[in-house]
């Protein structure tokens, strides 16, 4: 089950990026939309930025012990 899911995931990742390489972008509003796999890159690095950025913020001030307000 887990292994199959893993393969399915990798295949769909590959497929979506492969299709992304071949489709032409209509209505391009921003320069980065011309980069073929921009969405994939943005998703991957955006996610990392969100996780690390938020955790850094959390550990440097935002997060307090659970009885902070008691």
């Amino acid at each position: 089950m887990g292994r199959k899911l893993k393969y399915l995931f990798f295949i769909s990742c590959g497929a979506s990026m492969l299709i992304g390489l071949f489709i032409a972008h209509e209505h391009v509003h921003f320069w980065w939309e011309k980069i073929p796999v921009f969405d994939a890159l943005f998703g991957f690095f955006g996610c990392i930025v969100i996780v690390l950025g938020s955790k850094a913020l959390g550990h440097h001030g935002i997060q307090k012990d659970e009885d902070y307000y008691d």
Partner: protein
Amino acid sequence: MIDIVPPAFIFILGAILLPFLRERRLRQIFQLLIPLIAFIDLLYMHKGTYWVYNFLGYDLILGRVDKLSMCFGYVFVIVAFLGMVYALHVREVGQHVATFLYIGSTLGVTFAGDIFTLFVFWEIMAVSSVFLIWYQRDKSALDAGFRYIMVHIFGGCALLAGIIIHVSNTGSTQFGFIEYGGLASQLILLGFIINAAVPPFHAWLSDSYPEATVTGSVFLTAFTTKSAVYVLLRTFPGVELLVWLGAIMALYGVVYAVLENDIRRLLAYHIISQVGYMVCGVGLGTEMAINGATAHAFCHILYKALLFMGAAAVIYVTGRRKLTELQGRNLFKKMPICLSLYMIGGFSISAVPLFNGFISKTMVVAATGELHRPIIHLLLHLASIGTFLHTGLKLPYGIWFGRVPEGETIEDEEMEATEPPLNMLIAMAMTAFLCILTGVYPQILYNILPYPVHYHPYTINHVVGMMQLLLLTAGAFWLYIDKLGGEAKVSVDTDWFYRKPGVLLLWFVSNPLQDLRLRLQGFFTKMVANITSLSKNPILLPEITARYFHLKIINRLYQASDTYKDKQDELKKLESKLAAAKEMRYDENVYRRPIGLGVLIAIILLFLYGLIYFIRLH
């Protein structure tokens, strides 16, 4: 045509009648019937203005029907029905009464045609909704409810102040487009964005929604913020400030969601994030953006209700509300149906193609493209990554599959968990069905939007782009899966400003201020007591005064000299004389004077009076 009534009144009437139904089955049927009647009522409403009443020279309009109000009206009534199915097992009538009042007042806001009607329903909405929190009946819910109502009362006051200035400036009570600029519009906007949970006025939402009852939180997610989006769409389309607030808000919710451990609070932060898209759409103000904001509100109400239903069901069956308490329980084996239905909500909010978030969220994002707003576009894009990361991946993983981090053990080994009651599952299934239906056939929704829709969500570019974004987000999630588990912490948000300094204020009131009050009170009480005792015998007043000062002066003089000790007896004697004089009651026999004295005084006064009179005459 059938004579229709305002949909708000159907719910309010329902709230009044509900307590009189003693039979439980009958009550349940009634609870489901009311939203159905309201829905049929909506079907009979046509564009126009209805139910206009003149009150003190102002027109109160209870029914302004156009495409925008109808779209919100439909979704409010639909989610009212779904929520009622979900809450059918709740025996406490009070909860249902509060819910009906809450829904009724929201519909009142939706169809209000003038700002006074709007304000009245706005306030009922705040007051009725707080009971959905208080019915949880524990201390944290009670406290959160008080904070909730205080913030909303503040917002209501700002709104009322704005309305009064606006009406006295323009003379118009019409609830419609307001030119932004000037104090009146700023106060009205403040009132609205407090309800829309726009940072920094958002903390009431993430503070109170997770404390509400299991079923109450489902209703709370649907009405307050979305009715605020509706009034913003009416009054402030195209206000640049809202574009930025919306985009920041979308990301703000995501950042806090990363840190959150309480499952419903995590979802609450995602309400803030999603409402950010709508607020941004309002600010952009183009036809496409307005359509997008409306469509997103519609879809959001459905999928967020579904997500809250799923999370609340877990809380209902396990009694746990934190990720750290739920990990390692393998709940997916015990409640697979609940998980599957939740996932439909998760995919919808993440805008996976064929689910309803995809057809609405992409519309707002596309509107930013049309207007060439690169920064806003990227901010919203980034927020959608965060949305999928949390509601689509982290939360379901944490609740149903979560592993215990290495080196930690589960405290209490066995935890009872089954699927939630049937009515909850049916409600979730119906909501999930609607999420998919509007996702697959977007025309159903697009046809009721305020402007004609020229947007096609299912182009190959959109679908492939979105799949890339989501799949690679999932990839990154995989890498950080162990970092993303819940931490047993609370996150400090802007509610800090009234929670921590609030304690200081309480200290100030109960210590220095209370002390001052006691001192003042003591002083005045003593004064009153003295006057009372002196008034027992006012004739002796000169004597008492003389004795008092005599005693004081002698006392001081003796103190200055060294004979003080020897004179103690004398002082005591004087003191006792003073006390005796104070104690002496008025007795008319003691002070009886000859009658001639009174006559003499009268004659003297008469003489003086005559003297003055004659002097002045000449």
